[in-house]
């Protein structure tokens, strides 16, 4: 790989946003509105309209109706988080949520409407009242396109499309930019910035069955972790109860919100035995565990891809399904070959979201000056041990906006970063990539096989149900996989659009994040929210009512504790 040519183009910005999904684009627009002269860069490894936000279906929650209250949304969120959410964060979130959804409406987002022209709301898991705003059942798609198209208005936003960020540039403890691989040319460039805002999403691809797209590989989390920032609450991985077996394609919670039932092999609505108060509208962690238990105890169907239960929409009627759940019908007809109007859908829990991430404050600041994070990649935390459906899309907007603004303000106060200062850091990264991948000789490991082994151990040891033993085994396996990664050889040694190289770099990120997840789950000796340990089946507020901060060391993560901020809702038993 050649040393970067002298930069003919200015690659220095005030604020550099990594990732072009809902959080990243919202942040970019927010930064642009702080000051017309702010120079904003959005660096994304895919074109922004391909970001994973696009796959979200169900909706975005906020208090918009008379029959609702901010306190109720806060309580629902805190109870849903199994009391691990920081309540000051929740209070900020629910307060700002309504204006963000109205703002998106003003920007053209085609929210579904009531007959009187007002924005509609639907029921969703864990929510006491109907407050989930939706755009048919393609909410993420419409939100992303509205945000992306609106962002095109702001000429001070410069986009680097299909530039893969490989590392953060840290100088004297401060983040001063990134190194990014221009996929089209294969050249690695340093891009300096006064502020870097990570909006890279989560890492569902660490697991074999996931709703997540191929691009969700935990990039930002791994980069921040390597740079010395803390990752928080990594043990909490959300399984969405209703994904298609095999492909993992998401069947939105809205299908239950609109009245769908979950049925086991014996034809019973089995949730009666687990959460009779809420049934199909219970929070995701409880439902996923219920389905896994049904599978374990032989009351589920058996299929090519393992066990599954039925999601029955047949009683809703064709008209309702076409009006409220048309995309669900389309997906099921296409990928399962049945019509949900007439037949129940096979579903099973699949990995969907990571509650954990780079530890930040309300404005997105991490422990590294100049480095911010927002969206799924960040853990402030709003969602605690379990996220309620439809809070995440709103989260991206609220905290994307807050960190975009905060980042812009911070940038206005900083001196420009000298490009020469980071030249040697960028050269080092270039040499690393060349030596490790492009010019590597020998090497017998393949990216795909290591990824499969990572999948196996994560599903087995780090899944819905965990034990100390299974987690320890996963930690050991992952350590070995990381060692074996040093021996990886990629087929493609070319420069032009090398997706083999990109895949290897992504696997490197994933292994690091996976290890952090496994160790964090081992360190938390309790069951809370999405973490369910068979050897510690109870929640223990005396011992574990705190966040686990993980810092990278060569021997694995070192943990520190961070207390949970409690304002008005003292922790109690999580009842539904």
């Amino acid at each position: 790989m050649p040393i970067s040519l002298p930069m003919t183009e200015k690659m220095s910005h005030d604020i550099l946003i990594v990732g072009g999904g809902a959080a990243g684009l919202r942040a970019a627009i927010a930064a642009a509105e702080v000051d017309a002269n702010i120079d904003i860069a959005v660096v994304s490894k895919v074109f922004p309209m391909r970001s994973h936000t696009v796959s979200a279906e169900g909706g975005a929650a906020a208090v918009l109706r008379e029959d609702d209250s901010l306190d109720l949304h806060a309580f629902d969120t805190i109870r849903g988080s199994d009391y691990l959410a920081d309540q000051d964060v929740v209070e900020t979130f629910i307060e700002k949520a309504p204006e963000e959804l109205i703002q998106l409406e003003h920007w053209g987002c085609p929210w579904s409407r009531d007959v009187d022209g007002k924005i509609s709301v639907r029921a969703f898991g864990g929510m006491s009242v109907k407050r989930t705003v939706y755009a048919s059942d393609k909410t993420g798609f419409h939100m992303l396109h509205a945000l992306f198209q609106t962002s095109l208005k702001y000429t001070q936003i410069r986009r680097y499309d299909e530039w893969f960020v490989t590392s953060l540039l840290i100088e004297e403890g401060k983040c001063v930019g990134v190194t990014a691989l221009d996929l089209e040319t294969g050249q690695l460039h340093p891009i300096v910035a006064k502020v870097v805002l990570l909006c890279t999403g989560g890492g569902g691809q660490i697991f074999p069955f996931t709703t997540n797209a191929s691009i969700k590989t935990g990039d930002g989390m791994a980069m921040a972790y390597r740079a010395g920032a803390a990752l928080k609450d990594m043990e909490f991985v959300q399984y969405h109860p209703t994904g298609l077996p095999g492909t993992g394609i998401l069947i939105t919670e809205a299908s239950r919100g609109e009245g769908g039932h979950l049925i086991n092999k014996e034809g019973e609505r089995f949730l009666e035995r687990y959460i009779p108060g809420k049934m199909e509208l219970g929070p995701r962690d409880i439902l996923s565990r219920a389905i896994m238990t049904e599978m374990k105890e032989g009351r589920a169907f058996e299929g090519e891809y393992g066990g599954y239960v039925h999601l029955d929409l047949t009683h809703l009627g064709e008209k309702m399904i076409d009006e409220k759940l048309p995309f669900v019908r389309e997906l099921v007809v296409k990928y399962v070959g049945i019509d949900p109007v007439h037949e129940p859908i096979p579903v099973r829990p699949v990995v969907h979201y990571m509650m954990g991430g780079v530890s930040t404050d309300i404005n997105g600041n991490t422990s590294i000056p100049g480095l911010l994070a927002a969206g799924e990649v960040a853990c402030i935390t709003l969602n605690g041990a379990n996220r309620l459906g439809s809070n995440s899309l709103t989260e991206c907007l609220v905290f994307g906006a807050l960190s975009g603004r905060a980042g812009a303000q911070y940038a206005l106060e900083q001196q420009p970063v000298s490009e020469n200062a980071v030249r040697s850091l960028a050269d080092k990264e270039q040499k690393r990539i060349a030596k490790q991948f492009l010019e590597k000789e020998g090497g017998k490991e393949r990216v795909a096989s290591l990824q499969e082994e990572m999948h196996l151990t994560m599903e087995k040891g780090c899944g819905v149900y965990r034990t100390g033993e299974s987690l320890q085994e996963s930690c050991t396996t992952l350590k070995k996989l990381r060692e074996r990664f040093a021996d990886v050889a990629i087929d493609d040694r070319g420069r032009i659009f090398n997706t083999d190289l990109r895949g290897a770099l992504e696997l490197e990120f994933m292994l690091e994040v996976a290890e952090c997840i496994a160790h964090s789950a081992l360190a938390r000796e309790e069951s809370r929210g999405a973490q369910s340990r068979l050897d510690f089946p109870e929640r223990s507020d005396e011992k574990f009512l705190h966040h686990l901060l993980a810092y990278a060391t060569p021997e694995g993560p070192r943990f520190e504790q961070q207390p949970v901020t409690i304002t008005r809702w003292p922790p109690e038993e999580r009842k539904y």
Partner: protein
Amino acid sequence: MNPQNSRPEDLLYRPHMSFWWWLQKRNYFLFMVRELSAVFVGLFALISLVGVYRLSQGEDTYQLYLSALQTPAARVLFVVILLFSLYHTLTWIHLTPMIMVMRIGSKTVPPILVLIASYLAWMVISLILFYLLMVD
């Protein structure tokens, strides 16, 4: 080609569209037939205009024009024109519902009704013209 010294734009492979593109797909071919049919519709209009002109030049000239139209070659031409005109009309009638969105109040008229209305309009106008031109 040395990628190191080339600009990215120069490394792109730029495909070339074949002159025979319209033979490569059934729909492309049918499209070209539809476009070609306009030529024949135009030709008929031209022939009619010539007829008007001949009429203005006097009864004899007009009769000569009419005899020319009754030669075997002319009859074949008219059959061809008729076939192309039918194809032209039918394809455009079927495209009409896509283009003409009719609204009554806030509801949209179902496309099938627009299609039926187009057919009916065609029939009615054709019958009227037939009566005017053919029935003496």
